[in-house]
């Protein structure tokens, strides 16, 4: 991390490490489609703590991004939060009107978007876009906000910020644009940072730099980070806790080390087995047979029943609730204990 300026991103005095910053409980998100109302996120609960990273892990379409957008209040017009609470520092964001929420967007909660290449507005200079948060929330003058923008750019490691502040997004590389997006998200020193696949669009070397930047910001200001990703390796490296999502439901949560070390849900197990590790050249890679159910065909019982090697009649009838399984871990499976000990046959 380059020069550190006093006015930008210093630790919030009101935050202590490991304190719960965000508690999501029983979150439901419905999407209105021509085919009817679909449940994209079902009864999702998790918590994010200051100075820690929680990973929301899952395949594309599992509802992890939708969950992030619901928390940030940025759902598309066709999607609605229909149940549950999103408590950020004592306030239930889900109960606020869109207008009331504006107050929290920036000062309390920042979000970094997936596609750095298109997320910036092409017609404004990065300086103007970085200044916007200060103009809106702190009512700063254009001049004062620009000074802040330059400090922010320096803070996230953009060289020569004084001259680059008047450049347009297309004049920056992908990695630099992602740095600018991160700078915007942390501009007002929020408690919570949601990073929605922040490195998906970037080169591997740039990915590492961006993750380091996020890590540094988290450490220095006790940020609670929610990392949305499908990348198991990224979760293993960056996250403290993980919530595994499947077909709109959280199926397993816990400390990353433990969940990855001894997965209790057959889906988590399947995901980890799919990582090519000791597979010889020419041998088939492991994969989970089948594909996730479509949103309008989610079955009665367990969401994973169609692909689960352990499936029994009870799984088809009753959806298992997320229940505590050992210290700090939860799992939604009728056969959680069995899974942990049994070798699974993947067809």
């Amino acid at each position: 991390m380059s020069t550190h300026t006093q006015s930008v991103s210093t630790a919030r005095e009101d935050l202590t490490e490991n304190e719960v910053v965000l508690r999501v409980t029983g979150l439901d998100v419905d999407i209105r489609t021509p085919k009817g109302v679909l449940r994209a996120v079902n009864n999702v609960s998790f918590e994010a703590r200051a100075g820690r990273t929680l990973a929301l892990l899952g395949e594309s379409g599992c509802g992890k991004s939708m969950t992030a957008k619901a928390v940030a209040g940025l759902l598309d017009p066709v999607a609605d939060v229909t149940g549950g609470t999103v408590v950020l520092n004592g306030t239930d964001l889900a109960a606020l009107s869109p207008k009331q929420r504006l107050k929290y967007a920036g000062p309390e909660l920042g979000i970094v978007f997936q596609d750095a290449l298109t997320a910036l507005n092409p017609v404004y200079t990065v300086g103007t876009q970085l200044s916007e948060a200060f103009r809106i929330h702190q009512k700063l003058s254009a001049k004062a906000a620009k000074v802040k923008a330059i400090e922010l750019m320096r803070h996230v490691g953009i060289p020569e910020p004084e001259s680059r502040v008047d450049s347009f997004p297309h004049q920056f590389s992908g990695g630099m644009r992602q740095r600018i997006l991160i700078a915007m998200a942390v501009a007002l020193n929020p408690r919570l940072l949601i990073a929605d696949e922040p490195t998906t669009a970037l080169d591997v070397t740039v990915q590492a730099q961006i993750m380091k930047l996020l890590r540094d910001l988290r450490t220095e200001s006790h940020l609670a980070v929610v990392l949305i990703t499908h990348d198991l390796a990224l979760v293993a490296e960056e996250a403290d806790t993980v919530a595994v999502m499947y077909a709109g439901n959280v199926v397993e949560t816990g400390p990353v080390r433990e969940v990855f070390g001894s997965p209790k849900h057959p889906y988590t197990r399947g995901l980890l087995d799919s990582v090519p590790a000791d597979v010889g050249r020419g041998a088939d890679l492991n994969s989970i047979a089948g594909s996730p159910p479509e949103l309008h065909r989610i079955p009665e019982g367990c969401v994973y029943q169609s692909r689960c090697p352990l499936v029994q009649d009870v799984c088809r009838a009753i959806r298992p609730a997320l229940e505590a399984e050992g210290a700090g871990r939860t799992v939604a499976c009728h056969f959680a204990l069995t899974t942990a000990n049994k070798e699974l046959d993947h067809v």
Partner: protein
Amino acid sequence: MLTFLRRRILSSALPLLVVILGVFALARLTGNPASLYLPLNATEQMRADFTEKNGLDNPIWVQMAEYFGGVLRLDFGESLRTGESAAAMALRAFPATLQLAGTTMLLAVVLAVIVGSWAALKPNGIADRISSFISMAAASVPDFWLAIMGIWVFAITLGWLPTSGVGGLDAWVLPILTLLLRPFGVLVQIVRGAMVSSLSEPYIKLARSKGASEFRVVTRHALRNAAAPALTVAGDLAVGLVNGAVVVESIFGWPGIGKLMIDSILQRDFAVLQAAVLLTAISIFILNILIDLGYAGLDARVRPTGKPRKASKTGKATAAPAKERKLHVQTTP
């Protein structure tokens, strides 16, 4: 910037030349002015004298060469009707058209931006459906019919507005309404489409994530991005207004360039017709250059940097999409 302007002016020269030649030739197809300007019982000798005096007895290429010689000295000839300088007559009529067209475009753009944005906020919502109906109707009504109906209803039956002329503000109402409807209708559709797509761009979510209010999101972030396609079409419509002006100015007796053109065609006043068409053509080229500068003002990605382009454009087409107008794209690795 200067290179850009110089290139545009050079590339405009050829189409201008074609316009002058075309009008020159076409005007002479209307017949010999002698039969209009001389009394019915004029002798053959009088006709021959008139023709010779006005240089109409020479072969057309000689006439053309003489005319071009004049144009190069900025001498556009004299009116057969009044003997006045043709250029002076065209320049005198032009401001009236410019005022009418300018006011109309300004109103059309402002109204279309408001209605189009309002419709785009909720695609397929009630506001969208109403504005879609109104704008389709507005874009489809023929202007001459509307002008005549307007005179019949508001001037003759109700007596609220004058039938024609340029007196007070009330004289502006019918001509502007007549000219306004089509650009308004088309622009509403364009603004709505551009706003719907720009409101679904990722940068809108980014703006919301910074706590920007709905008003700020729409006006600052979405509209600015939707402006380029609207500008393209507005430019095209502004050119179309000149055509509309010919009809509307004739119907309402508005002393603009359109009426001057019609009058000079009817009276075979060749020099005046040529001067009026040339002035209109030049103003359209200037408009096109202004539109290009407008793009550059809106979006840094299409700002000219003075590097030569391979393909030269005639400057005639106004509806080229923004992408094709990209002059030089800067990228920093």
